[in-house]
C-alpha cells in the first residue's frame, strides 16, 4: 500500500513537470487541445447528420446514440491520460530506453506510464460529460443518488479495460523488436464500441464482448443509464471484465519484461 501511495506521489510530481514542458510550446498546447475537441466533435457530427435522414438506427434513437458516445469519451479520456505510450516500441525498445526504465525504483509499467502521461486529455472527460448531459436532458433520464458511484465505477473499469489491452499490446514489443502495427489496428477496432453492438453481425459482437471487450467501454455500461434492461447483465459485468483484462495485461507485461534483452545503443 505504501508503495502505491508512493507511485501516486510521483505522479503528482511528474504532472507539474509536464505542464512546464507543455507550456514551453504554447501554440502546440492550444493546438492539441483544439484538435482533441475537433476529433471528438466530428464523430458527433456524423451521428447528428445521419439522424437528419432517419428517425432510428435499429431501435436506437439519436439521443441514445449521442449518450453512448458521450459516455465512451469519459473512460477513453482517462485511459489516454494515463496510458499514452502509443509509441512504446519505438521510444523504449528500439531506442533502448527500456534499460533506463528498469533501473528506476518504481514498477516499470508505472514508470512508463509516468513518462507518457498526458493530463490535458482530461478535457475529454469534460466534453464527454457535456455531451452526455445534453443527451440525458433530451431523453429525460432520471438518475438516483447511487448512480454517481456506479458511473465512477464503470468509468474506471472502462479505462482499465483499455489499459489492459494496450499494455498487453505494448508488451508484445518485448518479444519481437520489429514494428508490429498491432496498435493502430486495435485503435481502429475500438471505434466500433461507440455504437450499439446489435448493429453488427454475430462475429463482430463476439469479438467486442469477449476478445477485445471494447463494448464494455461504451454501449454496455451506457445501457445501464439508458435503462435498457436487456443489457443490465453486461453492464454489471463491466468491473469483472476490467479486472480480468487489466490482470492479463499486467501479467503479459511482467512476463515480457523478463524476456527483454535490450536493443539499440
Amino acid at each position: 500500500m505504501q508503495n502505491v501511495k508512493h507511485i501516486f506521489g510521483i505522479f503528482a510530481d511528474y504532472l507539474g513537470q509536464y505542464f512546464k514542458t507543455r507550456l514551453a510550446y504554447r501554440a502546440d498546447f492550444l493546438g492539441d487541445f483544439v484538435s482533441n475537441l475537433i476529433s471528438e466533435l466530428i464523430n458527433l457530427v456524423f451521428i447528428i447528420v445521419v439522424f437528419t435522414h432517419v428517425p432510428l438506427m435499429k431501435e436506437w434513437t439519436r439521443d441514445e446514440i449521442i449518450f453512448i458516445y458521450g459516455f465512451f469519451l469519459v473512460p477513453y479520456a482517462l485511459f489516454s491520460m494515463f496510458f499514452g505510450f502509443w509509441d512504446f516500441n519505438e521510444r523504449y525498445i528500439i531506442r533502448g530506453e527500456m534499460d533506463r526504465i528498469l533501473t528506476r525504483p518504481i514498477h516499470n509499467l508505472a514508470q512508463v506510464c509516468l513518462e507518457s502521461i498526458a493530463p490535458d486529455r482530461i478535457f475529454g472527460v469534460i466534453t464527454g460529460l457535456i455531451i452526455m448531459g445534453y443527451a440525458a436532458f433530451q431523453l429525460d433520464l432520471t438518475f438516483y443518488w447511487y448512480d454517481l458511484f456506479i458511473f465512477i465505477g464503470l468509468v474506471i473499469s472502462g479505462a482499465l479495460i483499455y489499459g489492459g489491452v494496450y499494455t498487453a499490446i505494448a508488451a508484445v514489443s518485448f518479444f519481437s523488436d520489429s514494428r508490429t502495427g498491432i496498435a493502430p489496428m486495435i485503435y481502429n477496432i475500438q471505434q466500433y464500441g461507440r455504437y450499439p453492438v446489435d448493429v453488427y453481425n454475430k462475429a463482430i459482437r463476439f469479438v467486442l464482448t469477449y476478445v477485445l471487450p471494447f463494448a464494455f467501454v461504451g454501449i454496455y455500461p451506457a445501457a445501464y443509464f439508458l435503462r435498457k434492461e436487456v443489457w443490465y447483465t453486461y453492464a454489471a459485468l463491466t468491473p469483472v471484465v476490467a479486472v480480468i483484462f487489466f490482470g492479463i495485461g499486467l501479467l503479459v507485461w511482467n512476463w515480457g519484461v523478463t524476456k527483454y534483452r535490450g536493443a539499440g545503443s
Partner: protein
Amino acid sequence: MHKLYMELIRMRFLTMLAYRVNYYSGIIIYAINIGAYYFLWGAIYGGQQQLGGLSVEQMTSYVAIAWMSRAFYFNNIDTEIAQDVREGKVAIEMIRPYNYLSVKTAQAFGEGIFRFLFFAGPGIFLISLIIPFHFPATATGWGLYLISLMFAFLINTQINLLTGLFTFFLFRNDGMMRAKRVVVDLMSGLVLPISFFPGWAQTVMGFLPFQAVNYYPSLIFTGAITPGRSWELIGFQAIWMVVILVPILILWRMARNRLVVQGG
C-alpha cells in the same frame, strides 16, 4: 532533374515494400473501417430505399471506393516535415541541390503508387466479391476517375505540405496536424457523402478544397454523374490545386528566411 524525382519515387516505393508489416496491418485497418461503416450504414438504412440521393448499394460502393481512394492520396509528409524540422535535418535538406517540397511530394507519390497497386487494387477486388459493387462501365469512366484521383492526391499533398510548413513557425504542431487529418476525413466526404449534409453546410464546404480530395473522385467512380459534370469537377480540382499553391510558396519563402534549427 526529372531523373532525380523518378529515383526518389522509386526509392520510397521500395522502402514501402521493405516494411511489409505495415502493409499487412494497413490492409486489415482498411478492412476494419470499411466493415464498420458497412454495418453502420446497413443499420441506418434499415428499410429505407434511398437516403441523400444514394441507394444502399450505391452507399456501400461509395464507402468502399472512398476508402480505396484514400489509400492512394493519403500520406504523412506533414509529420515527416515536422520531424525534419525538429531534428534539424531540414538544414541539410535545404542545402541539397533540389527543392525540398518537390522531394516530399515525389516521396508521397511513391508511397501512393505502392498502396494503389498492392493495397487498393487487391482490396477493391476482394470487396467486390463480398458486397455488391459497381465498377465504371466504360473506359472513359475509368479514365475520368483516375485523372480525378491524381488531382485528389496532389491537393491532399498540398494540404499536407501546408500543415507541415507551419512547423517552421510553431516548432511543434502535432495538434494541428491531427486536427487536419480528422477535418479532411470528414469534409472530404470519406465518412459521409457531401450530399448527406444539410444545405447550408454543403454551401460552406463548396468554398473549401476538401471535397476535391475524396468526394469528387468517388462520385465519378460510382457513375452517379454524367461525363460532362465529371469534367467540371476535375476542372474545380485543377483550380484548387493552383489556388493552394499560392500560400505554400509564400510560407516556404518565409520559412527559409526564419528557419530556427532545433537540435541537429
